[in-house]
C-alpha cells in the first residue's frame, strides 16, 4: 500500500480486464469480457439491469471473484486480492454511509484503517469535506443530511485516501433529475482535479454520454460496443446499441441493393429506404438478407423527393420546448418519429407527410429488430 500520509497528488491507474467470465449457477452474468481503461480515463459501463455491469464492477472491487480471466489495476494482478488490499475507492448505489458514525467519522474511516496519524486525518477529512462543499457538516449524522448531501459524503469518503481508481455503482440513481445533473458536473470536475481513473456504472444513457470519455455498452454479459459518446450515438455497431443509446426508429426490411457502403431495403408496401451498412457487420450483409435500419428522429426531416420516397400519416405531435416531436405511422403500420425545429405550420393529426433522411445518417444492421 502506498504511503497515504504523505501522498498529496494522486494519478490514475490503468485497468486491464482480460477474458473475464463469471456465472451464478446456470446464469452467465459476465461472458468473456476484455476491457482496457487508460490511466485517468472516465469510462461508463452502460446497460439494462442484468447486463452484467454491476457484476463486472464487483469483480474489480474484489467483492466477487471471476471464474476465469485476469483483472489488473496499474499493472498489478488484482484478480484474487482481498477488497481491503486493493486501494480502490468506491461509491455505492445507496451511498452505504455508516449510520452510527458522524460524517467526519465516515470520511476518516479509510485513513483510520491505514493508521494515518490523527492530526493528518483531521486535516485530510477537512480538505475532503471542503472539496464536496460540506465543511460545516462534519459533526452531523448521515440521516440528518439530504440525499444529495449523503451522496457527496460518499464521494468524499471514496476519494479522501487518494485512490488511483474510483468505482461508482449508479451513484445518482436515487436522486431527482435536477440534482442528478448538477452532481454529474461536480463528479466530472472532481475526477479531472484528482486525475483518478473512474469506472462508472449506470443504466442512464444520458448520464453515460455526458460524463464519460468512453462508454462500454453492456448486454447479456458482453460488451456490445466500447467507444466515445459521439461515436456511440452516431455510429452504433449493433441494433441493441442503436436502440438502447438515445431514441431511434427501427425499420426491418430485405436488402435489394448494396453499393458504396449504402444498402437499400425493401420494408414492405413498396417502400424503399437507404442507410449506411454498419462498419463492424459490413461483410455480413448481402442482397436478400433481412436487416434492420436505424435512423434517429432528429436526423429525419419532412421533405419530399428524397431517395426514400417515404410518407407517414401523422398520429400525434408533441411540443417539447426546444423542438417538436411528430409521431407518425408508416404504410407498413410501424411507428415513425421525427424531431424537428418548430415549423411555421405544425402538421395536424391525419396529415400525410413526406419523410426523408440522408442515407449516411442511417445505419443498417443484420437481423431483425428486437420486439419492443
Amino acid at each position: 500500500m502506498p504511503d497515504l500520509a504523505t501522498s498529496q497528488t494522486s494519478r490514475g491507474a490503468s485497468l486491464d480486464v482480460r477474458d473475464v467470465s463469471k456465472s451464478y449457477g446456470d446464469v452467465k452474468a459476465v461472458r468473456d469480457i476484455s476491457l482496457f481503461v487508460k490511466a485517468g480515463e472516465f469510462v461508463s459501463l452502460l446497460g439494462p439491469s442484468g447486463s452484467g455491469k454491476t457484476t463486472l464492477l464487483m469483480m474489480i472491487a474484489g467483492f466477487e471473484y471471476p471464474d476465469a480471466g485476469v483483472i489488473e489495476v496499474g499493472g498489478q494482478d488484482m484478480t484474487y486480492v482481498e477488497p481491503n488490499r486493493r486501494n480502490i475507492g468506491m461509491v455505492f448505489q445507496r451511498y452505504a454511509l455508516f449510520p452510527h458514525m458522524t460524517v467526519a467519522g465516515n470520511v476518516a474511516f479509510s485513513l483510520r484503517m491505514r493508521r494515518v496519524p490523527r492530526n493528518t486525518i483531521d486535516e485530510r477529512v477537512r480538505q475532503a469535506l471542503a472539496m464536496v462543499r460540506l465543511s460545516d457538516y462534519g459533526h452531523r449524522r448521515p440521516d440528518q443530511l439530504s440525499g444529495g448531501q449523503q451522496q457527496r459524503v460518499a464521494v468524499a469518503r471514496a476519494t479522501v485516501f487518494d485512490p488511483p481508481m474510483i468505482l461508482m455503482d449508479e451513484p445518482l440513481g436515487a436522486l431527482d433529475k435536477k440534482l442528478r445533473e448538477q452532481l454529474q458536473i461536480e463528479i466530472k470536475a472532481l475526477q479531472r482535479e484528482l486525475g483518478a481513473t473512474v469506472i462508472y456504472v449506470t443504466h442512464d444513457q444520458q448520464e453515460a454520454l455526458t460524463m464519460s470519455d468512453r462508454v462500454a455498452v453492456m448486454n447479456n454479459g458482453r460488451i456490445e460496443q466500447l467507444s466515445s459518446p459521439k461515436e456511440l450515438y452516431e455510429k452504433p455497431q449493433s441494433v441493441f446499441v442503436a436502440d438502447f443509446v438515445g431514441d431511434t426508429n427501427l425499420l426491418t426490411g430485405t436488402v435489394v441493393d448494396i453499393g458504396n457502403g449504402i444498402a437499400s431495403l425493401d420494408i414492405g408496401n413498396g417502400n424503399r429506404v437507404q442507410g449506411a451498412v454498419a462498419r463492424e457487420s459490413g461483410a455480413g450483409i448481402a442482397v436478400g438478407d433481412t436487416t434492420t435500419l436505424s435512423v434517429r428522429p432528429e436526423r429525419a426531416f419532412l421533405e419530399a423527393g428524397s431517395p426514400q420516397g417515404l410518407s407517414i400519416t401523422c398520429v400525434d405531435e408533441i411540443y417539447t420546448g426546444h423542438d417538436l416531436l411528430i409521431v407518425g405511422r408508416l404504410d407498413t403500420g410501424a411507428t415513425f418519429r421525427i424531431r424537428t425545429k418548430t415549423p411555421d405550420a405544425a402538421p395536424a393529426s391525419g396529415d400525410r407527410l413526406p419523410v426523408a433522411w440522408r442515407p449516411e445518417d442511417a445505419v443498417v444492421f443484420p437481423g431483425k429488430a428486437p420486439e419492443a
Partner: protein
Amino acid sequence: MSTNSSALGRTPAFLMLLPLIAVLCFAVFWPVANLLGRSFFAPDFTLQYYETIVSEPLYWRVFIRTFWISALCCILCLLIGFPIAYAMARTSAWRALLIAACVLGPLWTSILVRSYAWIFLLQRNGVVNDLLIDMGLIETRLRMLYTEGAVLVAMTHVLLPFMILPIFSTIRAIPTDLERSARNLGAGRFRAFLTITLPLSLPGVSAGVLFVFILAIGFYITPALVGGPRTLMIGTLIAQQITELLNWPLAGAISLLLLAVSIATALIFQRALSVGRIVGND
C-alpha cells in the same frame, strides 16, 4: 392517516379490546395484585414476610443462585446465539430457512418434553454417561442431573431462540453494502465486523439479553425438573411456598421482589441501549 379518521376509528377499536381487557383483569391483574397484596397483611399491615426473606440465608442463596445461573445462561446464549444469528442473516435463503427450522423447532416443542429429554440424557444411566464410559473417558458414572450445570445447559437450550431471533432480525436489517464499504475502505473481515456489524447489531443483542435474562430469572419448569430440590431457583421457590407450604403471603413477597428485579433490569437495559447508541456513534 388524518386526525379525523383516527378519532373515528378509535372508539370501535377500544370496544373490540374490552373482552381482552376484562379477561386480563379477572385472570391476571386481580390474582397477581391479590397475591402481591397478601404479602403486606397478616392481617394488619406488616413487612414481616420481607424481613423473613432478608434474614433467612436460604432465600439469599436462592436469589444469588438464580441471578448467577441466569447471567451465565445469558452469556452462553449470546456466545452460541450470535454466530448462529449472523450466519442466518448472511447466508442464502434456503440455508437460512434450514437454520431457522433447527432454531425454531425446539420453540414449538413443549418445554416439558425438552426438560425430560435433558433428564434422559444426563441421568446416572443416561446417554451421556454411557457414551463417556464407552469412550473410556471416565470410569465411574458422573452425577450430572440435579446440578447447577444441568440447569444451565437445559435453560440455555430452551432460551436460545429468544436470543437468536432479535439478533437475527437486527443483523438482517443491516445492508451488506455497509460491510462491503468498510472492506473497500481498507478494513479486513474482522475489523469490518468489529467496527460496523457489531455496533449496529447491539440493539438486537440488548433485546436478546433482556429477553433471556428476564425469562431465566422467573423460569420454573426446567429448573424444577432438571435441577431438583438442591438447585432451587426463585420460580421453584415460589411454587414450593404455594403448593407445598401454603404460605401465600411469603410467595407474594418473593414474587414482588422478582417482579421488581425484572422491571429494574428492563429499565437498565433500555438505558444501556441509548448509551450504547451514543458510544457506538464514533
